[in-house]
C-alpha cells in the first residue's frame, strides 16, 4: 500500500492543467473514492474525458481502467467526446416540458442539423439536454454558454444558435 502511494504517475502531457487534477487527487490521498471528483476535475479543465486521461486517472488512483470507464459512462454529466466552442443546454424537466421545452429542442435540432447530445461538424455548437435545472420559475429555460435564459421561444433559441454558427463561419 505504502509503496503504491509513493509512486505518482506522470500526467499524459506537459499541459499545466494537469496540475489541477493532481491537486484534486492529492487532496484525497490518491484514494479510489476520489474517482468522481477527479473526473469532474479533468472535465472542467479539458472539456471532456479522453482515453489518455482515463488511463492516467486509473493508474494514479490504482483502479482498473474498466471501472474508471464504467463510472465515466454511467454518469450523464461526463462526456468522452470533445464539446463544441459553444454549448446550448435545453432543460426538459417537467415544468419546461409542459411549457414547450420539446418545441425548443426541435427548433434547435433543425437550426443546427444535429440531434441532442451531438456537436456540429465544425465543432462550434454542442446541443445538450438537461433533466431539470431547478429553475422551474423560468420555464422553459435554456442555458446558452453558461447563461441561464428563461421563457425562451423556439424561434428565439434557433436565432441565437444560428448567430454562433454564422459568426464562426
Amino acid at each position, binding site marked *: 500500500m505504502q509503496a503504491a502511494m509513493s509512486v505518482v504517475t506522470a500526467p499524459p502531457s506537459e499541459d499545466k492543467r494537469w496540475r489541477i487534477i493532481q491537486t484534486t487527487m492529492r487532496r484525497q490521498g490518491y484514494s479510489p473514492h476520489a474517482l468522481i471528483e477527479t473526473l469532474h476535475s479533468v472535465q472542467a479543465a479539458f472539456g471532456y474525458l479522453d482515453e489518455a486521461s482515463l488511463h492516467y486517472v486509473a493508474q494514479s488512483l490504482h483502479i482498473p481502467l474498466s471501472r474508471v470507464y464504467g463510472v465515466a459512462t454511467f454518469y450523464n454529466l461526463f462526456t468522452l467526446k470533445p464539446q463544441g466552442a459553444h454549448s446550448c443546454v435545453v432543460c426538459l424537466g417537467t415544468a419546461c416540458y409542459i411549457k414547450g421545452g420539446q418545441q425548443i429542442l426541435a427548433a434547435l435540432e433543425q437550426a443546427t442539423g444535429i440531434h441532442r447530445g451531438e456537436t456540429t461538424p465544425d465543432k462550434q455548437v454542442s446541443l445538450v439536454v438537461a*433533466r431539470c435545472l*431547478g429553475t422551474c*420559475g423560468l420555464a422553459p429555460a435554456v442555458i446558452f454558454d453558461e447563461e441561464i435564459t428563461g421563457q425562451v421561444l423556439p424561434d428565439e433559441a434557433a436565432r441565437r444558435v444560428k448567430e454562433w454558427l454564422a459568426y464562426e463561419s
Partner: protein
Amino acid sequence: MNPEELHDIAVKRREQQAQFENRIVVCTGTACHASQSEQIIDRLNTEIKGRGLTKRCAISAGGCRGLCAAGPMVTVEPEHILYQGVKPDDAEPILASLNEAPVERLRCDTDAPFFARQKRVVLEYNGMLDPEEIEDYIAAGGFATFINTLTQMQPSNVIEVVRRSGLGGRGGAGYSTGLKWATVAKAAGRHKFIICNGDEGDPGAFMDRSVMEDYPYRVIEGILIAAYGIGADEGFIYVRAEYPLAVKRLRHALRQAEKYGLLGNDLCGTNFSLKLDVRLGAGAFVCGEETALMASIEGKRGTPRPRPPYPAESGLWGFPTLINNVETFANVVPILREGSEWFASIGTERSKGTKVFALSGQIKHTGLIEVPMGITLREIIFEIGGGIPGGKRFKAVQTGGPSGGCIPEQHLDIPVDYASLAQVGSIMGSGGMIVMDETSCMVDVAKYFMEFCMTESCGKCIPCRVGTAQMYRLLDKITRGEGTLDDLTLLEDLCDMVQHTSLCGLGQAAPNPVKSTLRYFRDEYLAHIVDKTCPAGVCTLHREAVSL
C-alpha cells in the same frame, strides 16, 4: 468557539447593521440571478456612491422570497417593501424613494395570499440573510442552538426531542426522523457517518436547491446537531452537480464554519468532532436512492443494493450511516430551539410541521412556498398559486416527480399529508408540484415520466431496466395512435410487475405516473386507442394506422 464568542460575533454584526438606516436586499438565487440580479446590485452600489448614501444604506445579496416567476425580487428594509421584476435601471428610483413613498409600479403586495397563507419554518429568514456571510446568520441567532445543544444536552435527549416533534423525512417517504436517528445511535462502532442528501433529481423540484443556496449555514447547523445526537464524526453533503451555485455556497459556508471553529475537532471544548465535506453527483437520478448515493460517494457507479442491511447498520464503507434530506436537516434547528411541542402543533395528526413545495407549470405564481401540512391542494393551487393563467381549465397536479402521480380536480380538497396523497395514488415526494391545464395530454405526460425512468434506470435489476423500456414503448405506440386495447392490458400488467419486483425505489415507483393517469384519465388513453385522437391536441397520431 464558545457561547460568549458566538454572542460577541452576533452583537458586533448587529451593531454594524444598525449603523445603516436602510438595507436593500437583492435576491441572488438561481432564478433571480438569471434575471440580472447581480447587475442590479452593481447598479445600486454605483448609485449609492453617487448619491453619497454609502453610510446610510447597505446593499446586500439575499436569498429567495419565493415568487421566482416575478424576479428579480428586491426588498427594502426596515419597511419590508418588496419589489418585483426589478431592472438594473430601477436602482435609481428605488434609492430616490428611500424615506419617501415606495415605487408603486414595482411594488409586490406582501399581504397577498401568496405570502399571507404561507407558514415559514424552514424558510423562516425569508431570504433576508446574505448566503455568503456567516456573521449574518450568527447575528440572526444562528449556531446558538447547536452550541446550546452541544453543551447542555445529552445526545439521547436530542434524539428524543426530534422523535417527539414528529418530524418525518422530507425526502419523500416521511419515515420518523427521530427513530432513524435512534437506530444509527444504537448501532455498534466508534466511527459513524452522516450524509445530507442534496441530490434533488426530481424534475420540477427545486426546494433543496433553494435551501442550500440561501441557508447553507442552517443546513450545516442541522447536520452538526444530528451528528452530535447519533455520534457521527464524519459527513458529506452530496449535491447534484447541476446546482453550481449551491455547491459554491456550501463550500464557502464550510470553510467559514471551520474558520470559526464550528466544524473540526473538539468543538466548543467538548470531545465532539465533525469533519464535513461536499461531494458532487454527476447527473444520475438514481443517486437520490440512499444506497446508490453511498456508492457514488465511494467513487463507484451509482447502483443501489438490496436492503437490509440498512445504512443505519452498514452504510458508507460499511460503517453505520445516517442519511437525511436537506429539508429534514433544515427543520432540526427550529425544533431544538422552539421545542418538540411547538413543532408538533403545526400540521396534522399524522404529518407534523410544514412542507416546502416548488410550484410550477401552468400556474400564475410559480415559485417556492412553505405551507403547514394539512392545507388542501386547492388552497395551494388556487389561493397561494393564483390559479391557472390565461383562463384555461385545471386538469391535474403532479406531485412527487417521476415516482409520483397526477391528481385530478375531484381530489383537490384532500389535505396535503403523506397518507392522503398516497391514498389518491400519488406521493408527497420531495415537494415538486407541477400544475397542468387542458393543454396537457395525460398520456404524453405518462410517456414523459416513463422515458425519464427508462433513461435513468441504472440497469442493475431486470424488472426496472427492461420493464420501463417495455412500458415506454407501449406508451409511445399509444401516443402515435397505433395502440390497441390489448396493449393497455399489457401496460397495466407491466405496472404491477415492475412495481413489485424492482430492486429500489426508482423501479418500484416508476409505474406511478402511468397508474395514476390510467386511474383518473382512462378516457384519454381510450381516445388515443379507439378514436385515434388526442383530446389535448398534443400527440400526432397516425389515423390511418390499423386499429384494434
